[in-house]
């Protein structure tokens, strides 16, 4: 009951914050170098035609009216047409978003689970060979520059060894084949996803491992761990049942933040692996002055960040009974 009220309150907060973001974004695009008129209107048009077009777009209206139109369009789901694709922006984003979510959610959940598990083991063997190897490995992979690792992965596993495809998300022939079942198609996507997934996993699991390790080391000094030992619990129960749930809390925050920023942070990965997701679309729209597409992508990022934070807060309340709202 309390939780429900809390979520309701958070939703209102989120709505207010989102409104602010919406406004800032509106102003930002109008403050950007080169006024929107010259960017949106073809310079080859006659001045009369240009004026007509400007009037049609509503760009001759005062800023306030433009803002109100902007809000109305947003809340009725009209994001305009992409300059480059000539398709509705909503449709483009709707096509790209699942690809991004598939790749990044999988990689983050995978690296968090492995990171938490290995971090727990490392802290348990603190100072021993196991710990030193894991910590060093985590530090190295964590600090590698992502695009470089991505290129090396492609060069070794796709180009030299030929185990995985170099680009893309699907094999067109398989998807055009009417005989191919869902299972074949899923395997095809998994096959294409392996390299970007492995790259993201290698980059991310180290930070979770390090957070979990240091959090575990702090937790193991807590008095309730001593109570557990005094109660005659086995070391395994103390580690997994008493220390790990407490120690995993900071990792959850970190996972939430990674989820939130994966959409835009994925720009590099998606570009290198030509993964047809939102990140690549964002880079493309910005570099091609595709104004409506860029604006919608930014709004999408804002929504994802806000919602991930909400999910983390709810998850926290579930994991830590001390947090009640």
């Amino acid at each position, binding site marked *: 009951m309390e939780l429900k009220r809390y979520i309701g309150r958070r939703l209102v907060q989120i709505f207010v914050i989102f409104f602010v973001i919406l406004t800032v974004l509106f102003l930002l695009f109008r403050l950007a170098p080169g006024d929107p008129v010259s960017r949106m209107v073809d310079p080859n048009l006659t001045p009369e035609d240009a004026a007509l077009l400007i009037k049609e777009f509503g760009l001759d209206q005062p800023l306030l009216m433009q803002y109100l139109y902007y809000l109305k369009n947003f809340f009725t789901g009209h994001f305009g047409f992409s300059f480059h694709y000539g398709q509705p922006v909503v449709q483009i984003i709707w096509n790209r978003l699942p690809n991004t979510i598939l790749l990044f959610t999988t990689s983050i959940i995978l690296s968090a689970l492995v990171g938490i598990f290995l971090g727990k083991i490392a802290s348990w063997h603190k100072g021993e060979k196991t710990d030193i190897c894991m910590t060093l490995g985590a530090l190295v992979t964590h600090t590698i520059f992502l695009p470089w690792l991505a290129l090396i992965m492609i060069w070794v596993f796709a180009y030299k060894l030929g185990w995985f495809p170099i680009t893309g998300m699907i094999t067109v022939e398989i998807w055009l084949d009417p005989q191919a079942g869902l299972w074949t198609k899923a395997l095809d996507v998994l096959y294409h996803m392996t390299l970007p997934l492995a790259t993201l996993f290698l980059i991310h699991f180290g930070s979770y491992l390090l957070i979990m390790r240091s959090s575990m080391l702090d937790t193991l000094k807590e008095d309730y761990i001593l*109570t557990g030992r005094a*109660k*005659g619990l086995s070391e395994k129960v103390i580690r997994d049942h008493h220390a790990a*749930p*407490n120690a995993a809390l900071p990792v959850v925050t970190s996972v939430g933040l990674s989820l939130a920023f994966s959409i835009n942070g994925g720009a590099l990965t998606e570009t290198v692996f030509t993964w047809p997701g939102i990140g690549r679309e964002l880079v493309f729209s910005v570099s091609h002055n595709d104004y409506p597409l860029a604006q919608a992508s930014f709004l999408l990022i804002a929504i994802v960040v806000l919602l991930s934070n909400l999910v983390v807060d709810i998850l926290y309340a579930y994991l830590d009974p001390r947090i009640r709202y």
Partner: protein
Amino acid sequence: MALLVVENLSVGYQTQNGYLHAVEGVSFSLDAGKSLGFVGESGCGKTTLGMAVMRLLPSNGLIREGRILFDGEDLLTKTDEEMRQIRWQEIAMIFQAAMNALNPVHRVIDQITEAIYTHTPSHNKNEAHEQVRALFKFVGLPEDRMRDYPHQYSGGMKQRAIIAMALACKPKLIIADEPTTALDVIVQDQILEETKSLQREFGVSIIYISHDISIVADICHDIGVMYAGQLVEYGAREEVFDNPSHPYTKALLSSYPTLTGEKSQLMPIPGEAPNLINPPFGCRFSDRCTEASVSCKSNPSVWLEITPTHKVLCHQCGKHCGE
């Protein structure tokens, strides 16, 4: 027969500055159903002593010599697994509630039943819950709070829950380490009453560790006074109280106020406890002692029996008696 006999126990810690002699040559015995209190200032080794009996010293802790006989068996020769079985089933602990002794992410009932399941796996859920209900009733906690989390309890309730947890496996010995220290005096008094009644009803032996001599005097049959890692005076409560023999015990008694009796000036003990990495060769209290002589500093102190149940570790006392 004595339930617990500790003979010449020495415990130390490996520290960056060298080996720290936390407990040196401590011997005592405790009969079944009796209670023994250890008093002394911070750092005198009383907590280390309790932890050594449970064999729960931190990783840099080392039991250098001595024997700990529990029910006639030496705990120091037990394997880790055997020791794990003894913990809580035979010897339980009551921790200070101000410490985070209860795990914040688990319900209180689950933390108590966990101890029951660990030592008697045959218990089913209903039996265990029934047992917790009875324990809650005994320590005066409302049954409907069993499923709460520790942070929903007040300090006094947490302390009661910890006592209930200590009783869960019906141990023969309970080591209570400063259980009332962080509580206000009224709750402190209630907890002390409960400790006394659990001793009456369960017939359990208690080792009570405190810096507060008045608390120990309230509930213990025997009192051991510790100073700088050594037991300096040991005897029945009345004897230690009515005839404090070690200068440290005397000083300790006169540094606490009394509600009854004549008003007297509180006497602080000047100076501080010696460094336990290089403890003095002679009597460890000699630097702060008003009665110390040259021989106190140059010779190790020896035990002197005042009565069969009252001993003191002091040169001067011996001299007085000899005179």
